């Protein structure tokens, strides 16, 4: 059975860095997100949007990496915003009630409008 690694595309749009994730975000790949988000915090990138609409699976380890990233960014005055449609990410956020704590939008455009 083949392992499909998580793909992370990064894009700078105005004052936002957008990370588009594709694949499974689990215990094997969560470290990738941890590192990427802490890198952005170290670079003083203040507005980060993580697009989860192409994430095919996410578990609590994946969620933990987003929480850690959010803490790292907030520690330097930044923000982490999520984009999730009706897929697994939105479902897990709802299950864990983290959708109430995490700013989450349906589209990247909506997330970028958030100030």
């Amino acid at each position, binding site marked *: *059975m083949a*392992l*499909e690694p998580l793909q992370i595309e990064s894009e700078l749009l105005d004052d936002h860095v957008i990370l588009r994730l594709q694949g*499974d975000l*689990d*215990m*094997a790949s*969560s470290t990738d997100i941890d590192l990427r988000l802490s890198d952005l915090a170290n670079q003083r990138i203040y507005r980060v949007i993580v697009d989860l609409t192409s994430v095919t*699976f996410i*578990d*609590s*380890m994946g*969620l*933990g990496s987003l*929480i850690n990233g959010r803490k790292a960014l907030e520690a330097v005055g930044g923000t982490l915003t999520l984009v999730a449609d009706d897929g*697994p990410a939105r*479902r*897990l956020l709802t*299950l*864990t009630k983290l959708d109430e704590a995490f700013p989450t939008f349906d589209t990247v455009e909506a997330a970028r409008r958030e100030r």
Partner: protein
Amino acid sequence: MTDTDVGPATVGYTGFVLEIPAHANYATDARIFAAAVARDLGLDHERIEDLKLAVSEAFANVVHGGLVGCAVLELFPETGRLRVRVTGIDPGLSHPLRETADDLDRGLDLLEALVGPLEVSDDGDGTPTLGFCVSLDR
């Protein structure tokens, strides 16, 4: 039934067992295996996704810390339910199932929310086990 339609692969089996290295990279394999069995048993998409999530959480909890050994995923179809068990096998190392790490605590909470009470066995002999059941009723 036609010649090419051989019916569900689960017919005639009393249990399904997957042994994989106790490493994070194999969590995907555990999910794929569980989903294949669940699909054959007729679970709908949403419940298959729940099962994949539950298996992933159990696997993560059992293999955390990077065991040297292997993990065994077992699925037993029973009347009205599917019994699932994940066991870490590493005679050289023992560790508690419940860690203080936030991620693992969150994972167990999530697992309990998904499948209800957990069967936990952790007698310190290097074979921590997490078990749970999911309903097969439609």
